[in-house]
């Protein structure tokens, strides 16, 4: 872009400075609604074509309920599923919901000395708050959220234009399966919505990072946070 001090009105109109880009929350909302719309529209796969003449919605509904109860009962009867995949879904839902509501932060500050004390009195632990902005992940704020039956602290960071939410909460001593006494290596997964997640344990805290940035950057973020909290 040339840095002329003057341009013509025509150039100004065309240079993009008047262009209104869609906010991230809108993007998320549109995608969520399209998903819901798809779910409503597509007939249940187990609803064979011989049902078409009848009452397809009722048929689909009954089949759907039937399948759901089957799955539910299976879940009850088998081993409890690994906690992390339920938890993973909770994290994804909470993250997306926060983005959709455009109320992603309760405390808007890039100063870790403002964000950390803000959690006092709101949760019963003190989350370690670091600001790895030197590595390209500045802190932008924090919020309170509710995950796994308890209030948790969420620190919000940014990588370029991608928000990254970092959920931090103490491990349950009773429920831990032994290996989490010390730190564990960050485990990267990808939800089927396309969000990248990392989970790790460190000094008795559980960390979950989630973002729509690609897994490469999430991994780097996790490493930057780990390094920051190790001090």
């Amino acid at each position, binding site marked *: 872009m040339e*840095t*002329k*001090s*003057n*341009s*013509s*009105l*025509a150039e*100004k*109109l*065309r240079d993009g*400075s*008047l*262009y*209104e*880009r*869609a*906010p991230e929350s*809108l*993007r998320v*909302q*549109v*995608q969520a*609604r*399209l*998903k819901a*719309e*798809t779910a409503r*529209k*597509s007939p249940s796969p187990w609803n064979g074509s011989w049902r078409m003449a009848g009452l397809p919605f009722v048929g689909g509904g009954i089949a759907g309920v039937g399948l759901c109860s089957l799955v539910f009962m299976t879940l009850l009867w088998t081993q409890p599923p690994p906690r992390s995949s339920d938890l993973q879904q909770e994290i994804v839902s909470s993250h997306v919901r926060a983005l959709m509501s455009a109320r992603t932060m309760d405390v808007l500050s890039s100063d870790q000395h403002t964000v950390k004390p803000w959690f006092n009195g709101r949760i019963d632990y003190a989350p370690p708050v670091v600001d790895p902005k030197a590595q390209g992940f500045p802190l932008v704020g924090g919020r309170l959220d509710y995950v796994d039956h308890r209030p948790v602290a969420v620190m919000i960071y940014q990588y370029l234009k991608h928000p990254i939410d970092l959920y931090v909460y103490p491990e349950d001593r009773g429920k831990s399966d032994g290996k989490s006494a010390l730190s564990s290596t960050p485990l990267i997964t990808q939800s089927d919505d396309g969000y990248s997640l990392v989970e790790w344990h460190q000094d008795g805290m559980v960390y979950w990072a989630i973002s729509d940035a690609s897994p490469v950057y999430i991994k780097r973020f996790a490493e930057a946070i780990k390094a920051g909290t190790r001090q």
Partner: protein
Amino acid sequence: MAKHSPNRFDAVMLPHLDAAYNLARWLSGSPTDADDVVQEAFLRAFRFFDGYEGDNPRAWLLAIVRNTWFTEWRRQHNRADATPYDDSLNVDDQLPGWADESGEDPEKLAVRQDETELVHRALATLPVEYREVIVLRELEDMSYKDVAAVAGIPIGTVMSRLSRARRLLCTAVRAAQGGSEQQAIRLVKTPPAGPEESKRGN
């Protein structure tokens, strides 16, 4: 059935989310209305996707955005523009309420880097029918054909409306730049003045 797959719709239409929001925002003037319009438009686009012929997704989507806004929001919220609009007016006739000094060309009117906000406000004051064609042509860089398709008007009307819109915008921008430049000279109750009191404000 493959056509209705959400991935195909996403891949074809989501890249134009910004364009949809930009148009909705400029039409409605409000970020919350723009949000609502875009969501509703995307739902409609998704439902009508089978009827999409396929070579110009942006124009197709923006036409839906425009119609959604026009039929739903404009009617409900009764946003009557201050200036009555009549397409049958001869292009050179003055619109009531507008001091139209024709002859100004956006290519020639200088604006400073820091006057973006001023231009933004000037564009926002244009009657929506003019604002719309400027947004589609200049901001969105659409062909006349596409502008006509989105706005639902013949190509000839696009051209004449654009020409008018550009002149109106120039007038509005110059007025904003010059302060009271466009108004009649005001009598100021001060002693006989020096050059500061000149009618051409800075």
